[in-house]
């Protein structure tokens, strides 16, 4: 998501070249709408937007779609902002100007993390079910 069309297009192309499926949004509202309509693994958000503060967008998204990875792209680093963003649910923080190589690395890393998390969750659920079943069986056998 970015309010600059050229950047939007070029970044989309870069990510696509790596094999990702990319959707773009120019405003915060558009981004929210799209993320509600469809599940996305990750969102790249510019912290300064036309219609709302990046942090506002972030908290909204986190409420709606907590499982989506959110990476903030920002023009100026300040510890304050970083802490704030992370507290609001951002998963990573990148400084502008964004080096495409670096960006791709981070995206890759975060998606892997997500996968891990998913798998962990899956595993956990499976484990839990197994435990429950075992318990139930035990109880049944007792009777």
């Amino acid at each position, binding site marked *: 998501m970015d309010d600059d069309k050229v*950047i939007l297009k070029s970044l989309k192309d870069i990510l696509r070249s790596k094999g990702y499926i990319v959707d773009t949004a120019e405003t915060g509202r558009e981004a929210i709408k799209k993320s509600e309509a469809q599940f996305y693994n990750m969102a790249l958000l510019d912290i300064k937007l036309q219609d709302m503060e990046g942090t506002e967008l972030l908290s909204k998204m986190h409420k709606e779609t907590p499982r989506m990875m959110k990476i903030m792209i920002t*023009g100026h680093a300040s510890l304050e902002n970083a802490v704030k963003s992370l507290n609001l649910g951002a998963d990573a923080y990148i400084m502008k100007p964004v*080096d495409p190589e670096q960006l791709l690395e981070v995206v890759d890393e975060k998606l892997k993390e997500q996968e891990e998390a998913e798998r962990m969750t899956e595993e956990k659920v499976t484990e839990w079910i197994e435990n429950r079943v075992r318990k139930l069986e035990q109880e049944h056998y007792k009777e």
Partner: protein
Amino acid sequence: MKEDEKARGSCVSASLTKLRKSLVGILIGSMGLFIVLGHVLSEYLELGSFADLLDHLVQPSLLFCHIMDFLSIPASILIGYFYQKQKHVTANLEQIVEQRTRGLRESESRLASIIAASPDAITVTDLDGNIIECNQATLDMHGFPSKEEVIGRNALELIAEKDHQRAIENMRKTLDQGPVRNLEYSCLTKDGHEFPAELSASVVRDALGNPAYFMAITKNISERKWMEADLAHERDLLHALMDNMPDAIYFKDFNSRFTRVNRRVAEWFGLSDPKDAVGKTDFDFYTQELASKFYADEQGIIQSGQPVIAKEEPESHFGAKWVSSTKVPIRDREGRVTGIVGISRDITDFKRMREKLREYSEHLEETVQERTRELRETQERLLKAERLAAIGETAAMVGHDLRNPLQAMSNLLYLGKKMIKEIPSRCRKIVVQTGIEELFVNAAKQIEYMNKIVSDLQDYARPFKPEFVPTSLQELINETLSALAIPQTVKVSIVAPKDFPNIPVDRSMTMRLFTNLLTNALQAMPDGGQLTIRLEQTESSTIISIEDTGIGIPKENLDKIFQPLFTTKSKGAGFGLPVCKRIVETHNGSITVESKVGRGSTFTVSIPLTREVSQTA
């Protein structure tokens, strides 16, 4: 007239009296004669003859009678004669008395006129003080219309009650000791007004020398009293002037001798009493040299009648004391100069201050010029700073706006590079030959550079919010060094005292500071060298110095290197040192550089220990 008449009258009556007196004598004489003749006749007639008459006359028994008869004639003539003489004597006596009385009356009236005409009041009283006689002047002085109103009163009625006691005593004194003179009393008028009078009194004695009357001559001295009061007032004024003025005031005669001086003069001369100066001259108190000058001035005034006004002259021998003297001539009624009066004021302090003022005004211009120069310099600096600030702002804005296009460029170049990589290998060789790959690589590098400039600019223009935390500088330095790529050819040494304390600094800023300085140092020594980092503590500040043995900085660049956008490096943005300066200034410190071309440079940062935090720099 009256007297003449009287005189003539008395003459006539005198003569008549004489005549009368002689006639009586003659008559008495005649009477005697007739008595005798008668007797003889009668005898003759009795006897008849003359012879008988004679016999008769001689008869002894009748002799006595006849003798007696006979004697009666001369007797009565004699008696008549003496009576007449006596009458004559009496008439003479009367005349003499008449004359004397006349003389007396004349002198009495003369005296009375004198007394009446006297301008002073003459009052005669008895020994109890009751007024017997007085003159017109008395009446006028005491305001009585006529003598009747005065005569009979006691003299004390004409004297104010407060002086009664004294008057009585003085009357006694006059009696006992003699005349009293010029006593002052407060006398009264008929209306009861008081006026001052001067009285002289004496006792008038009778023929036997016993006191009979008091005589007093009184003068109304009101006018004199007013004049005395005026005079006293004038004296007081003069006194006030003389003794209360801080200046020396002195009167001199035509020989320049002091006739009168005030206390200040006595002070200057070291006398305890101004009167001690009278009769002396300047030669008694000053050196020959000074006194001669004063004398010459004064004689000049006396000769020419021209005053000397506000002359400034030294008054003590070494010129340690200066006075301003004004001397003017004193003239008598005929206009002749009889002396001088002078006033001298000590102007030593005044003179000194005047000198100072003169000095000061002479230097004032210099001072003003200097100040103007300083002011102009400050103005220039201010303008420069303002200009830089404006440039900075603009640059920051521009940098900010450049971000997006640069980002786009980055992205596009990346894509371009990728596309080239994905060209099938058989076409690749042709593509590479055109050099397009290299082109993209270079373009990307340039974009990187541009990004760096923009980043640095943003950095530089951003307001600082420092957080001061006690930090170990050594630790920071080591951290910085580890982040930099230090070539083997550079030897690094850190010189610091053992227990170097932690200094309150902003950690990230200070790290940036060290990064910039160390990077510069390394860049200055592309072929290797010595990099020395020193830490020092003084009473008031912490000193960090970074020394390299690199190429050095030319003198003409030394004051430019801290300006933004100044760089001698092909790859530099020119913000490294300006950022360092800002960081140092945020810590209220200062950064200086010493450098020699070909030898190396030393950058010294000094941070004061007690700092006033500047929140934004």
